[in-house]
């Protein structure tokens, strides 16, 4: 490639399709996610947070890219590894962290914790502790959108491991026969807990299963934000225009362990380092600077701003009140 072309000309279409404001906001969300999880992890290490958590560090491009072109009233359904989806969809990180801390101000009033954060105001119908648990729910959301003739889309996230659950099969089949407005968004991070995707299924890509449902199947580099956004835009457009579901697979990698109890016996340091070199945030920043889309100063400001927001969120979470044990059964039933 001749390198005397102007940066605008040399931009690949996926990047060129995004304006500066969108890119800045996407990058900001990626930093928010990263910083959120770092702080969550530190809080856990310090014994401030209870239970377990599943970090998506390294997968930020897939969460932010997939959701970038969704509207606020479009729906998402997320997973146990769902902080990124939640933030990308516009959740308030302070209320998220408060939930981690089990506080009354948290999204679930301390009842749900990391694995069950939902934010109905931004169309986030919840993370899910059950692998593939969101997929059948997405079918119903799709049916609901269709029945109510709403111009909405439902995007459901799941992992490579989830693609071997029966729920995956039943859901993709129903979405396809009824042409539901759903984007099935698989974050293939190469492992389901310790299980190598290559041992767990015999096809190379989860998207290779799309033809079994006569559904478009697309695999993208999940660490490449513009590429994810472009592929998602197409799938979202297809769903919104009544042409039915798409199976979109983002190949990515989690840089942390599966959960806080992972001793990392099943993958090599080399492998992890290789993926660390493809960190989606650094990669986007490099490209943005290279093409003069955002300069280093702007990027530093974005990062600082994200750090500041998470810092404030941490204060909010720490200082929020705990739930009242007398209200234990209050929300079991709706009246």
């Amino acid at each position, binding site marked *: 490639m001749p390198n005397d072309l102007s940066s605008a000309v040399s931009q690949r279409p996926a990047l060129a399709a995004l304006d500066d404001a969108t890119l800045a906001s996407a990058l900001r969300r990626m930093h928010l996610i990263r910083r959120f999880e770092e702080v969550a992890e530190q809080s856990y290490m310090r014994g401030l947070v209870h239970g377990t958590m599943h970090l998506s560090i390294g997968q930020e491009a897939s969460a932010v890219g997939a959701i970038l072109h969704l509207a606020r009233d479009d729906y998402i359904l997320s997973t146990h590894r769902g902080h990124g989806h939640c933030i990308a969809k516009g959740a308030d990180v302070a209320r998220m962290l408060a939930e981690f801390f089990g506080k009354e101000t948290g999204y679930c009033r301390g009842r749900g914790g990391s694995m069950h954060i939902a934010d109905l105001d931004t169309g986030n119908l919840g993370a899910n502790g059950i692998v593939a648990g969101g997929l059948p729910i997405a079918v119903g959301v799709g*049916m609901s959108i269709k029945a109510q003739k709403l111009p909405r889309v439902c995007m459901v996230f799941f992992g490579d491991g989830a693609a071997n659950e029966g*729920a995956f099969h039943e859901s993709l089949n*129903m979405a396809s026969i009824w042409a539901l407005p759903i984007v099935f968004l698989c974050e293939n991070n190469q492992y389901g807990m310790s299980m190598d995707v290559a041992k767990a299924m015999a096809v190379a890509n989860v998207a290779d299963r799309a033809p079994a449902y006569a559904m478009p199947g697309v695999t993208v580099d999940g660490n490449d934000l513009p590429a994810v956004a472009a592929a998602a835009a197409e799938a979202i457009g297809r769903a919104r225009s009544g042409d039915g579901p798409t199976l979109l697979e983002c190949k990515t990698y989690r840089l942390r362990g599966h959960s806080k109890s992972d001793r990392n016996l099943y993958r090599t340091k080399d492998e992890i380092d290789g993926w660390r070199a493809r960190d989606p945030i650094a990669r986007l920043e490099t490209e943005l600077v290279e093409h003069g889309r955002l300069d280093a100063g702007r990027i530093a400001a974005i990062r600082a701003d994200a750090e500041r927001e998470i810092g404030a969120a941490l204060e909010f979470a720490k200082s929020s009140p705990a739930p009242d044990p007398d209200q234990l059964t209050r929300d079991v039933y709706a009246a």
Partner: protein
Amino acid sequence: MPLDAPATEAGVRTLSYAEAIREALAQAMEADPRVFLFGEDVGVYGGAFGVSGDLFHRFGADRVIDTPISELGLAGAAVGAALTGMRPVLEIQFSDFATLAMEQIVNQAAKIRFMFGGKATVPMVVRLPAGSGTGAAAQHSQSLEAWFAHVPGLKVVQPSTPHDAKGLLLAAIDDPNPVLVFEHKLLYRTKGPVPIEPYREPIGKAVVRRPGRDVTVVATSIMALRAAAAAETLAQEGIDAEIVDLRSLRPIDTDTIVASVAKTKRLIVVYEGVKTMGIGAEIAARVAEHPVMRTLAAPIVRLGGADSPIPYNPVLEKAAVPQEADIAAAVRSLVQEGAR
């Protein structure tokens, strides 16, 4: 069609249990565009037990939806639709197949509201034809309702009459929580008076079908009918049994049961599910932990299903669950024991 049969005073006609359910579905769909029915063969076929009948032709394929055979997916679809503004009614063709859908019913439907801190509702209804007596053997004859009574966040009802089949289903559809309606296959053709207007029977209330002095019989579903029939025989022998139809397994109407037992001082619980860990265990335990227990004249009796899968052979099949004569015999011996 009895649905067109002339109404008596106050618009009450005789309908079958299946027709009463169908009428409830039709009235709910007419009144509320959010309501729809879906499940395997509920459309053109009219439902495996003929419950949906002509609803497909009356409401169209968008509101009476035939589905693939995917019980887990269907239960999840009900959750998703309910969570986003619809009022789905799912028919699981035989309640036995709910074993495939437990994840969505128990981990999702029942818990979402709680896990989300009270910020969501899941107003879905699952209809489950249950019970033995049709010669369909062990995988098509179970009575698994007790499992669901163990799950906070769910409501569980078991209508025994056409009247309650309509009233409880309409109440279930109105309810902002997931409600499971266990219908008994042998009841579908039983008939009874049903008002033409929509009405609701309260979920969580038992009903005294027959007042009596000597013994309280708490019975569920078809056992309420068998117990009532047994009571007539017993009456001729001078035994006056009070029949309480439980109707709702979650929540349970402890007050009605305790009030009855306080009067009769003897309790027998009759149900079709396997005796061990069946609903009779819970009823017995509630009475045994209540002060009324001190006034009992005899140990509590549970008459439940045998400790066995349901067999195919019709004689064995009948032997596996309480029949009218078994109820009469058990009540008789309980009253005699109490008199000792």
